[in-house]
């Protein structure tokens, strides 16, 4: 009798609209980059090098956001770079989340020796400088998309483990968990059925933050040339190349930077917005 209950509809906020809109736009352009991109992102042409964006005199119609010093179209390269950024964000973010949140949940709910092991591991892990750790890992694993994803998961699971552990401890102390225990539910079942739904809003926020962080880490690694092979456009790689010609062609650096910034921002706002919208407890 769902209709017997008064449903309070919360409006979808501007924050959620904007961030979800930006995210959708990114996904679509990344998916359909071969159809949408005005130029081949790898085609070099020295006759069209360092063309300015369309509103500056001297621009060419095929290059709306200008071209870099090798004559490659900035807009097309950004579209293709979005593919790398998004796959890293989604895959690495999700894997990190699953690994870290599971360990955090186990540590926080079971306590005792699982907590000892996991917590000490997190302490040791967090004492490592993350970027150095990433560079070290890539050096061992070799460059490529898979290595990047593995590196991010291996480094960042601690963030989830820490926060979710603390949340799970708090939830585990609540009377409803004791009631479930008395009712005869298995410990593991209680963790999944009772605790998990209550830490899900936090997991959701952390996941979107992590996606942003993954994009940044990928950009940092591209910047130091340790990401994907150099013939594949990435935002970090473009920023790195643009840095060399900043005085002659600022657009090569600035546009990917803006995109990177907006993407990371939209991820975190998406998380907050979703939490506000779907958390059953109006806080």
């Amino acid at each position, binding site marked *: 009798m769902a209709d017997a209950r008064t449903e309070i509809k919360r409006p979808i906020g501007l924050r959620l609209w904007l961030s979800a809109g930006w995210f959708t736009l990114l996904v679509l352009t990344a998916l359909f980059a071969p159809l949408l991109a005005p130029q081949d992102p790898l085609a070099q042409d020295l006759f069209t090098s360092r063309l300015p964006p369309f509103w500056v005199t001297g621009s060419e119609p095929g290059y709306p956001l200008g071209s870099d010093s090798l004559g490659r179209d900035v807009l097309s390269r950004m579209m293709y770079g979005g593919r790398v950024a998004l796959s890293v964000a989604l895959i690495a973010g999700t894997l990190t989340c699953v690994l870290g949140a599971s360990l955090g949940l186990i540590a926080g709910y079971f306590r005792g020796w699982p907590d000892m092991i996991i917590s000490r591991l997190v302490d040791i892990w967090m004492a490592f400088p993350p970027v150095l750790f990433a560079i070290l890992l890539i050096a061992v694993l070799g460059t490529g998309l898979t290595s990047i994803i593995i590196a991010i998961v291996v480094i960042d699971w601690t963030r989830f483990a820490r926060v979710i552990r603390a949340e799970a401890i708090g939830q585990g102390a609540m009377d409803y968990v*004791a009631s479930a225990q008395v009712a*005869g*539910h298995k410990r593991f079942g209680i963790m999944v059925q009772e605790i998990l739904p*209550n830490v899900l809003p936090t997991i959701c926020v952390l996941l979107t933050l992590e996606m942003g962080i993954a994009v940044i880490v990928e950009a940092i690694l591209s910047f130091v040339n340790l990401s994907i092979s150099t013939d594949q456009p990435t935002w970090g790689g473009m920023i790195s190349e643009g840095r060399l010609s900043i005085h002659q062609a600022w657009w090569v650096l600035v546009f990917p930077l803006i995109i990177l910034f907006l993407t990371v921002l939209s991820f975190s706002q998406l998380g907050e917005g979703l939490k506000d919208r779907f958390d*059953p407890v109006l806080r």
Partner: protein
Amino acid sequence: MSFLTINNLTAHFGKRPVLRDVSLSVQTGEVCGLVGESGAGKSMIGKAVLGTLPLAIAATGGEIILDGVDLQSLMPKQRRQIIGAKTALIPQDPLTALNPSRRVGAQITNRLVDILGWRKAEAEHRALDLLGEVQIEDPERVMLCYPHELSGGMRQRLLIAAAFAAEPQLIIADEPTTALDVTVQKQILRLIKEMQARYGTALLFVTHDLGVVSKVCQKLLVLYDGMVLEQTSVEDFFTEPSHPYSKALLETTPKYTDPTGSLTPIPQEVLERARAQVAAYDRMQNHV
């Protein structure tokens, strides 16, 4: 025959005793009160029975016999099954005792379906009946609510309904009225008493409120620092308490007949005597 018997139960927090040789028995259909100050170990007895003691506290001796079975001799899985089938808990704080992210109806039926193997429709039917029994209006609507949409008193009614759902033979009520305001307290108390009488459940009632004890219980145990100072019937307790601590405890209750009178604390010499009794017990244990 008594349904729950506890013989010489001891529990320790590290080296410090939390329960000292606690023995009690509750018959089917009987209400037994556990009273004492904060930290006297009243809740710990209930938790020891239900197997929900905090990690740091361990039951170190004695036996807990539920319906003829010594719980401590069982494997965790068997123990969980017996406790799940024969007992239930009415917790203290209705605000944290319901899972905030699940609809309350599902929280009542869940146990019937998952643990006791009822069919879903049956369980829902039973839940609706129960909500009627605990005098919740419009049960169909309430079943679909989330806990935060309901008041404290409503939630405590739901918890009572949930506790009685599978008709357990023993219910442990851990200060079920402490978190509620006084007017609601009275209704909830009456409700627990009514339901207990209807189902003939054995009830272990943990409280620090002697007024509550006089209304609900048939007998009671007075605890001090994990030790039973007095075990007696309610009539005897309120007419002629045998232990000076019990007498002092009774005198701390404010009187309606003298609303201007100041509150009486427990006198120092009585406390010292109780402490001496505990210390004497500890010395004896260390000698053995």
